[in-house]
């Protein structure tokens, strides 16, 4: 075995830090999925009739669909009747006062580095904490309300802001969009809703932290962000789950609407449990994320650091409808051991002078498979549309795979679309150079990988960037020898 192989083996053999389970009373419904289950979920959430109907419509449509097979993924058959579709920590849905929150729950989020007491939090970050199917606590709501900003759980939004939900839910990702979107639209549990009124620059980062805790359950959250004219918001999303031998399903929807001159920055650090060294267990992560730049001069920017999940199927996209609107996608996807990722973006240019940038950095180690899949589509009316795409792949070791699937559809002759792609192996020369300066191989790899991903990591908000750097190092721990 060469040195590099040895270190690869070591780096790929590290432990998942967030794999603990919280012992807490959980209310669940029986396994399985049918119209009755959809109705039960809706009833548990005390939803209005129209929403129950909308769920049923989605469910009926889902039944006519087949799971998509086009991705470069090998997924064992999923038994959708063997999953629990609703689980909630007992003790009422939402805590008004911190004293009412179960100490076990507080402790869970503390261990995840997300204290729910406002005074303990990073100044400038409001958090909506979602455990299994319900939102546990949303912080800083009052501070935000002073500016007219709504930041609450999706269930609360259904109750308190039904008109906004009715207007925007499904307007970017309709339930007919794809298999997992239909499933989510039928059984979605909770998530976050965020509304930034006209002219308001949101004074703090908004963030949602998703935690799967209960066994055998799926997590199906929805996030909806609406930014009115001339507004700005930066939104962060984090996720973790306990270590289990069974695979668990996560199928989420995120919708973003940006009106004239509005800007939405959406950052994700996805660290669902990836399964063990032998590929046992882990989260199946099937997510539909899409934003629409509805107004002129609007901007939507996706930044993602994907290190977790056994399988990732995810393409955060932008529909650039407003003139001069801008879409951005910055991604670092790391796969190790037996992880599989098929991720990328879609940039749909509809308006004139629309611009998009795609920077994708894939890092594969162990026996993993890492694919970039991206579509750049320029419609007839998108005069002077511009796209720049750069897709880089970095391989650690020789048992992993990196793949790039770019799709270009250009229907306007004035469009300029550029695509660059590189594949490189982490060089023994680079590692030895670091060694010769006293840096051991593990640190050398972390240094090299972080350098490689820097362009994307720089796009993350400060606190997140530091976390993400550590995460990259941990994910690749033991992966080179």
């Amino acid at each position, binding site marked *: 075995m*060469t*040195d590099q192989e040895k270190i690869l083996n070591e780096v790929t053999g590290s432990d998942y830090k967030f794999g603990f389970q919280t012992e807490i009373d959980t209310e669940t419904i029986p396994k399985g999925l049918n119209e009755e289950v959809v109705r039960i979920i809706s009833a548990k959430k005390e939803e209005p009739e129209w929403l129950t109907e909308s769920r049923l419509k989605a469910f009926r449509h889902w039944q006519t669909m087949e799971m998509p097979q086009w991705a470069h993924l090998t997924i064992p058959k999923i038994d959708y009747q063997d999953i629990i579709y609703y689980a909630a920590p007992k003790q009422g849905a939402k805590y008004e006062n911190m004293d009412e929150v179960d100490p076990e729950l507080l402790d869970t989020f503390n261990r995840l580095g997300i204290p729910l007491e406002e005074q303990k939090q990073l100044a400038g970050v409001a958090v909506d904490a979602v455990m299994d199917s319900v939102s546990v606590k949303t912080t800083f709501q009052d501070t935000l309300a002073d500016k007219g900003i709504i930041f609450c759980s999706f269930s609360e939004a259904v109750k308190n802001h039904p008109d906004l939900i009715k207007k925007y839910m499904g307007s970017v990702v309709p339930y007919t969009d794809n298999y997992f979107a239909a499933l989510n639209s039928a059984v979605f549990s909770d998530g976050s809703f965020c509304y930034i009124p006209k002219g308001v620059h949101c004074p703090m980062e908004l963030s949602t932290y998703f935690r799967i805790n209960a066994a055998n359950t799926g997590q199906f959250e929805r996030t909806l962000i609406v930014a009115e004219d001339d507004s700005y918001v930066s939104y962060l999303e984090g996720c973790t789950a306990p270590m289990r031998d069974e695979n668990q399903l996560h199928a989420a929807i995120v919708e973003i609407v940006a009106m004239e001159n509005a800007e939405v920055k959406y950052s994700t650090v996805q660290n669902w449990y990836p399964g063990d060294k032998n590929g046992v267990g882990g989260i199946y992560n099937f997510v539909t994320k899409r934003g629409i730049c509805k107004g002129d001069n609007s901007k939507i920017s996706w930044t993602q650091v994907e290190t977790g999940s056994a399988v990732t199927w995810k393409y955060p996209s932008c529909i650039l409808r407003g003139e001069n609107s801008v879409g951005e996608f910055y991604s670092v996807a790391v796969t190790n051991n037996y992880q599989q990722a098929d991720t990328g973006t879609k940039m749909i240019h509809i308006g004139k002078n629309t611009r998009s940038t795609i920077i994708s950095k894939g890092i594969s180690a162990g026996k993993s498979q890492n694919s970039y899949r991206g579509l750049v589509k320029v419609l007839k009316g998108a005069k002077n549309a511009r796209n720049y795409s750069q897709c880089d792949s970095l391989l650690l070791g020789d048992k992993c795979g990196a793949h790039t699937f770019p799709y270009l559809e250009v229907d306007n002759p004035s469009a300029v679309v550029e695509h660059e792609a590189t594949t490189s192996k982490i*060089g023994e*020369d*680079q590692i*030895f*150079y*670091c*060694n*010769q*300066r*006293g*840096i*051991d*191989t593990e*640190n050398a790899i972390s*240094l*090299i990988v*972080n*350098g*490689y*991903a*820097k*362009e994307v990591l720089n796009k993350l908000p400060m606190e997140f960037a530091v976390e993400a750097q550590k995460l990259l190092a941990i994910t690749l721990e033991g992966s080179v020898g």
Partner: protein
Amino acid sequence: MLEIKDLKVSIEDKEILKGINLSVKAGEVHAIMGPNGSGKSTLASALAGRDYFNITHGKILFDGKDLTELTPEDRAREGIFLGFQYPVEIPGVSMVNFLRTAINSMRKYRGQEPLPAGDFLKLMREKKQVVEIDSDLTNRSVNEGFSGGEKKKNEIFQMALLEPRLAILDETDSGLDIDALRIVSNGVNKLRSPENATIIITHYQRLLDYIVPDVVHVLYKGRIVKSGDKSLARELEEHGYDWIKQEVDANN
């Protein structure tokens, strides 16, 4: 300081070094010269611990410790520095970050606390003057987009910062114009002290006009075939390597 005893090194099954004996004392500068393919760079790499060189026989003692039993990073931490013939680019990793990681790894090995950021930046500023390096260079990624001369200067800058006890400079002069050669040599001369030693590996005598060695060795076909003082280098410059080759080949 350094004792190399009957060192034999092969790559795959081919023996490159066929029994090297070399003794370097603190305060000395040794030059190792020789025609292409004689094993000069192999010797440098073997000292630094590059893994695809197999040490089949012999010992490398550094202050009495057997280097062959240490990893490359531990050799570096013990005070061995290799100035690379082809310095490696590491995109996205800033020189500051790289060197701070390096220096703190070495400090940790010696049981010292990490160097506070302020002190480190001050140290960088000081050492930059030694090699007349542009401020801008240290803000860039490690060797990325550096010219050949800049890369070599950067090696000497790193050497100045890491303060090794034994520096091995592998063909540091190759590809340098006369100004860069002067700057690099000045840097090396300024860093000379009674406590440290330098091994200069070079093909040409030119560098030795600037850095005057105490001992000159000629490496040929994997063996040191001749050693002498600085006049040996001049002789090689005038007559080339052929007379040595003939001498050696005649004896075999």
